[in-house]
């Protein structure tokens, strides 16, 4: 049995119950035998010449029955046609080209040494296997692990590694590190693997594994290739990426294609519908997040207070998210990301910003567009029809602020619009971004109360939900969940019981496939709402997993 406790994309941390032992995942099999001594802190060993929990013996030599099947298969260049297996634990299958055994819990990738030859092959082989097996099943890639590539392999969904490569090159006097190989001892390589393993686990736990991956892949071109393949086919990864999280540091070219960043810009295209407003105000991003807390944004806000700001849509232009509508500034990763600011923009970043801006402008019906952007962002007013109120000055300079105040007043008029309507529209927009079009129902016949950002959605004196800035999401009450339930979205179906505390995956019969970790989920028994709270895993995983927490209930019947 496998229990996943933390996940990010396809990377996961958890526990594997095997023959009465609990094995931490991810982990490293350290070779053990006459010639191999595992390091003192090794948690898992693999015996090559004697019986132990995990051992291997050859297909042709009758040593003993081993944990891993004794197997014969040709190398990949032969087309992998023949596979014959003897013995082996029923939960372990070595996979060449034969049909997968659904009962297995650990799948060993056969002919793995060939994968180091071509990055595309490595990606396709591992992802191909990942697509065919359940999220919580384990993958072991023998022979190819190095401290340097463990993060990348983990990111692709590999759970188990071994010390073979370290032993092999160690015999030639090479020490492996998280950067490159140099003259040294095998013992050091093995310690470096253990150290990397610890970082992997921390990375997954804190939702920061992507940054570890980016730093490690940059040490060898083939690994960057693999990551690019992965970013190109992101759907599979996105399922396990939470909708809220820790800091997102955008430091490399590859960071621009992170799944959660792509998800944000994707949702701008698919889910975002701007409130009806006549004026669009384009603003720069700020180092301080969420944006509204920054000095720049506060000064700009003051400058627009004299005008009818309820008739004005604010849009923050930034890399790598492209464009962040003001009402979505709390949505992950808009308040978590950080980029190096050098007042220099790459071509890709410029294209991204203009692209997202055009998407928003196409969706809204704006009579006027005001650009209040710094000099380094003049590529924006240069490429669209607008009034440039910064006009080359710093956006917070008194000249620029004066021009902004006058222009906004001109365009929107001074007569203050309906503030409640403005707030409701903003929160409706947020709910749509979080739940999809169906989320609009949450704001129907409701009022927005409270002080930004802790807005509460109230209907007939009852609270439906609240915008929680720490999560960057609307948290639902039972009342809110009841309002949304007939829409049939973000639901987990359970048997007829009264859930309290947590709902475990084993109890989930069906779950909406749009559910991502941390999404608000309505726990239902048939048409009856039983509770509501954040998901711990994706909807698909809830359906398949037998262990682990699926939904952490905030409210229940």
């Amino acid at each position, binding site marked *: 049995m496998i229990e996943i406790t933390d996940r990010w994309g396809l990377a996961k941390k958890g526990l594997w119950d095997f023959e009465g032992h609990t094995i931490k995942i991810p982990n490293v099999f350290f070779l053990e035998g006459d010639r191999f001594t595992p390091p003192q802190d090794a948690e898992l060993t693999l015996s090559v010449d004697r019986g132990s929990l995990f051992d291997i013996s050859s297909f042709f030599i009758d040593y003993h029955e081993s944990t891993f099947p004794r197997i014969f298969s040709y190398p990949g*260049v032969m087309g992998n046609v023949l596979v014959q297996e003897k013995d082996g634990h029923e939960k372990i299958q070595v996979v060449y080209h034969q049909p997968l055994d659904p009962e297995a819990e650990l799948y060993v990738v056969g002919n793995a040494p060939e994968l180091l030859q071509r990055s595309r092959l490595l990606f396709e082989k591992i992802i191909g296997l990942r697509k065919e097996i359940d999220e919580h099943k384990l993958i072991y890639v023998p022979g190819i692990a190095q401290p340097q590539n463990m993060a990348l392999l983990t990111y692709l969904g590999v759970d188990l590694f071994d010390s073979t490569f370290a032993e092999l090159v160690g015999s030639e006097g090479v020490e492996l590190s998280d950067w490159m190989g140099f003259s040294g001892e095998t013992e050091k390589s093995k310690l470096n693997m253990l150290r990397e393993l610890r970082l992997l686990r921390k990375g997954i736990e804190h939702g920061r594994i992507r940054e570890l991956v980016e730093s490690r892949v940059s040490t060898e071109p083939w690994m960057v290739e693999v990551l690019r393949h992965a970013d190109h086919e992101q759907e599979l990864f996105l399922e396990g990426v939470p909708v809220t999280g820790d800091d997102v540091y955008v430091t490399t070219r590859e960071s621009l294609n992170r799944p959660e960043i792509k998800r944000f810009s994707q949702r701008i295209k698919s889910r975002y519908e701007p409130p009806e407003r006549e004026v669009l105000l384009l603003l720069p991003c700020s180092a301080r997040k969420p944006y509204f807390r920054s000095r720049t944004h506060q000064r700009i806000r003051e400058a627009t207070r004299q005008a009818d700001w309820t008739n004005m849509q604010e849009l923050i232009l930034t890399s790598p998210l492209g464009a962040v509508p003001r009402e979505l500034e709390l949505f992950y990763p808009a308040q978590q990301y950080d980029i190096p600011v050098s007042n220099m923009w790459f071509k890709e970043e410029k294209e991204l910003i203009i692209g997202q801006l055009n998407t928003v402008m196409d969706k809204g019906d704006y009579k006027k567009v005001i650009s209040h952007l710094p000099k380094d962002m003049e590529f924006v007013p240069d490429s669209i029809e607008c009034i440039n109120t910064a006009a080359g000055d710093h956006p917070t300079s008194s000249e620029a602020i004066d021009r902004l105040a006058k222009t906004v007043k001109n365009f929107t008029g001074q007569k203050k619009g309906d503030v409640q309507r403005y707030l409701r529209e903003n929160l409706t927009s947020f709910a749509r971004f979080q739940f999809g079009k169906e989320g609009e129902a949450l704001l129907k016949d409701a009022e927005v109360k409270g002080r930004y950002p802790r807005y509460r959605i109230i209907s007939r004196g009852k609270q439906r939900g609240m915008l929680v800035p720490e999560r960057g999401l609307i948290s639902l009450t039972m009342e809110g969940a009841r309002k949304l339930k007939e829409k049939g979205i973000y639901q987990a179906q359970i048997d007829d019981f009264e859930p309290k505390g947590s709902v475990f995956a084993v109890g989930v019969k069906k779950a909406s496939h749009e559910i991502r970790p941390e999404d608000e989920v309505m726990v239902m028994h048939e048409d009856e709402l039983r509770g509501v709270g954040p998901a711990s895993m994706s909807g698909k995983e809830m359906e398949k997993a037998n262990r682990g927490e699926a939904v952490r209930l905030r409210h229940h019947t």
Partner: protein
Amino acid sequence: MFKELSFKGFLIEEKFIILLPFDGPKMNLEKHIKEAHKKGSRSHRKDLVACWKEKEPLEKEKEPVEAFSVIFRTRGCYWAYASGCSMCGYHTDTNPNIDKKDLEDQLQEALSEYDGEKIVKIYTSGSFLDEKELEQSMAVDILESFEAEKTVIESRPGFIDLKKVKHYSKKVDGLEVAIGLESADDFVLKNCINKGFTFDNYDKKVRLISELVSIRTYLLLKPPFLLEREAIEDVKKSVEKIKDLTDVVSINPVNVQSGSLVEKLWWRKNYRPPWLWSIIEVLKDMDDPIVFISKAGMGSKRGAHNCGECDDLIKDMIHNFNLTQDRSLLSSVPDCRCKKRWSLENEIEPSLFFRGTPKLLSDRYTGYL
């Protein structure tokens, strides 16, 4: 041990699984062998392939005697036309257009080199007993032309029949029939070599003629798709199985022949010829039959080799062993640091779940040193 399945698909029987693909494993191996064969074309020459002299022990004599070896160029092995063996590139020496006249010329060429050596070994890059390669009359002419105390001819078991062998045995003194069995394990014969016959075929034919002639059996050290340690075990087990059937065992460590499937695998680092250490290991506990080790290609990248530093020394020892059959020579093999590497690789190989070479992995790192 394995069930032969004639139907397509797969069968799961508790913890014993056999998976057979749609075109069958043999077809797959054969397909690759044929593809490799296409690259090494047959010869247009009509002369002898080769002849050479070397020393070899002869039972009756105390000292090793001179042995004369000759390879006739014939149309070649029937099996190489029908299918082929994974390690064999001999078809590149053969010519489909050889006629009787050419063979007569070749015999004259051979005789001009022959100086009455006491042992004569006659090869054809195929089967001496295959009448498509050598008509009976030609075969008899060849046999009668030499005056050796011992004459060795080679054939696949399929061409061995009692009448023919009886006939030939009367034409020369001390006829020895050599058979390239390669391995006594049918799984290896079928799936690693594609030999086209089984151990049982060999066994039956040997029992049929062993009263009449002496038997020499060739074994292959390290067919493709065997790990180093499996290859050592395979030869040891094979010797154990045939030691009462054969008079002489000749172990051929694979050398990478051009035009063979093994060569294709070798280029892709999916094959490494056996280590010399493996040869020593094979000979170490073996004391029954007379054993020769073929030295073809030994010490080169295409032949059995070690690190390059100790190769010459060990090659010499193997040479001396061939002549003297003195096993005590083997215990005096000097240690080299590559021996550690050899035993480490032997232990690592099974854990790779890859029937290529660990070199494929370690080569990823040489750039940094």
